[in-house]
């Protein structure tokens, strides 16, 4: 298990689960962030405090803290 903090910008990992509140998990899942989905870390911007992810051809941005609730399979990488 690893989180976005351990990923380098530009790399891809396979999502294994999402933690946090139900509404948060549900919205992310409805945007296609389901366990088993490949996610690419596009950028990390310190000024805004956000990360941008790419999943199923679409971009989603999350705050650093909340992005840590996404868990990825440890052996997935590219």
């Amino acid at each position, binding site marked *: 298990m690893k989180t976005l903090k351990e990923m380098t910008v530009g790399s891809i990992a396979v999502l294994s689960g999402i933690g946090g509140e139900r509404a948060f*998990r549900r919205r992310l899942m409805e945007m296609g962030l389901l366990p088993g989905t490949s996610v690419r870390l*596009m950028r990390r911007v310190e000024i805004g405090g956000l990360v*941008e992810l790419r999943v199923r051809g*679409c971009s989603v*941005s999350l705050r650093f803290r909340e992005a840590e609730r996404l868990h990825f399979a440890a052996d997935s990488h590219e």
Partner: protein
Amino acid sequence: MKLLQPTATPPRVTLCGNPNTGKTSIFNRLTGRNQKVGNYPGVTVEKVEAQIELDAQHPAVICDVPGTCSLSARSAEEQLAILAIAGIPPLEPPDLTVVVVDATQLARNLYLVLQLIETGGAAIVALNMVDLLKREGLEIDVAGMERELGIPVVPLCGLTGDGIDDLRQRMIDVLEAPDTGRATCRWSPGGTAEREDIDAIAAALPEEWLRKSPARKSALAVWSLLSISEDDELEYVSPELRRLVAERHADAERQGRDIDREIIAARYGWIDSHLDGFVRRGSPPRKTFTERIDAVLLHPWIGFALFLLIMGVVFQALFSWSVPAIELVETAVGKIVLGTRWLLPDGMLEEFLVGGVVAGVGSVVVFLPQILLLFFFIGLMEDTGYMQRVAFLMDRLMRAMGLHGRAFVPMLSGFACAVPAVLATRTMERRRDRFLTIMVVPLMTCSARLPVYTLVIGALFPPSRVFGILPVQGLLMLAMYAFSTAMALLVAAVLGRTLLRGPSVPLILEMPPYRRPHLRDVLRMMWQRSSLFLREAGGIILVCTILLWGLLSFPKHPTLDTDYEALRGGARQELTAEALDTRLERIDAEEEGAIFRHSYGARMGRLIEPLLEPLGFDWKIGVGIIGAFAAREVFISTMGVVYGVGADSDEASVTLREQIRDETHEDGRPVYTPLVGLSLMVFFAFACQCMSTLAVVRRETRSWKWPVFLFTYMTALAWVMSFAVYQGGKLLGFG
């Protein structure tokens, strides 16, 4: 004999789609000019409707639903989508739903399409932006897509209008044979446990939700399972249904199941296994157009510098480019005043029309240039996709104050005028974020405060320099700006942790691909927002202006008229030509001052004098403050009247400045000291002296509670801060 045909109501079509799919463009293409803008019942969400003709024989009413990725909802605003599409009371069911889909982002967009099919209503997919497919290395087999989805798919391009005629024809076809737009649910719940959950909820759905369609029953049961939670803000959900859903979720959890995930995964499972059947992926470009632009616009420091530059342009536009248009409005109002005076005999009706009605209408219309300009920029930013990047760049900074990243644009606009800024808060989806921004935007130093500061600084502070270089007057002005901004952020931080404390909702920001903006759509939005303002806030502003006029002109003193007429007569006998004109003008101004000193307004000024004394103000300033409630800059003309130098005085008026310097209390002390001036400016920085702001806040919050709160807290804050400045200054030996 003529046959009387029953006038059938035209069929209803709703238009839905994910955000940023060009839905508005297609709506505008379909409708042309005759749109009606209003609000959905119960929420401040724009409802745009239009009566259209699909062809000569087929009229229809088309209604735009706010963009959404899913029909599931947490808030009343999000719930609107399911109400409008499934036609749950108080909304009417549509005869057809057109779902706009971004062809380049099919995987995610199809999620909404699947939900739509589930509800069992007739639907058409408008496959938008097919012109961009090649650039992305994609190819879509439309016939194959229709086969898989079971409903019509019309490829088109909203920007150029290609394919719109096909869409109209297909809409007619499906309206005439609704079953061709219906398909059975594409996915099926995986296990028996899920099926049981759905059936149990379906049995408990309220009667008015169902329209005798089994498909719909199961779709609304799925919707309830996904949407209802302990902390939702949904409406029309019975406690019974709420309890049942909670029970099902708790049971599932005990069995190690996650109902949300099972349902969502089943829908995406269908999409994943069928997408390759009709989408062919060639070699995608190494870096997409959007990725290349974002490399610059979201660059850690270049992106930030460009952002500041863009915001600088917006601010400059509101602050100075709007000036010629505002002056044009003011000149026009002046002309109308002259015309009215010329047309009507002197008297009450003339005064009422000029001082109340014309002034009132003028004070509404004068906001239009800034509103139009601001919404021009907001429209461009939203259409291109830049607005999401603003939130991306500003989130951390704004969040520290409890504000949403998108609050940056309204806050900045507040430096020009709070009225368009309050309207601009609509770009935030969450009620709490909007309200918090609305509550602090009026604290920003708007351009109406400038004339007051200019007058006070010009009259009471010497044009000297600190250390021989820094001008005192300019520094003071700058200090007022910095002070108001700091206070607005501080108040936001306090309100956001107390009165408007909301659960801190995680930010989930979609970053749409950059798109070329469509000027026609931007212009249409500018017009829609402005007409909403005119209709809904204009009335209140007009009424307030008339009330204030009454307050400052009544009651009439019985002998005043004849006294001043006698003075004029005397002057006419003694003087001629220019000397007479000057004298007559002087008498007019004095009469104005006299009428005013007898008015209810003056009485109120005297009444509140004990309250104002600790701030260093006398009753005349009190009257100015009452007059300034119409708008802050009215303070200057009111003071002109109070001091008998004429209502047409402006902030640069030398006589008004002299009058202010010479004004003394009964015991001979000067009324205005630099300390009083400072106290007065601080008062104006905080006090909510702007009925237009209150009117527009009332309109955006849909209640009187919030404008009353805004007025109360700002005025209280103004009093306390002025008190601190004046009394503190006196203790330190100033003034």
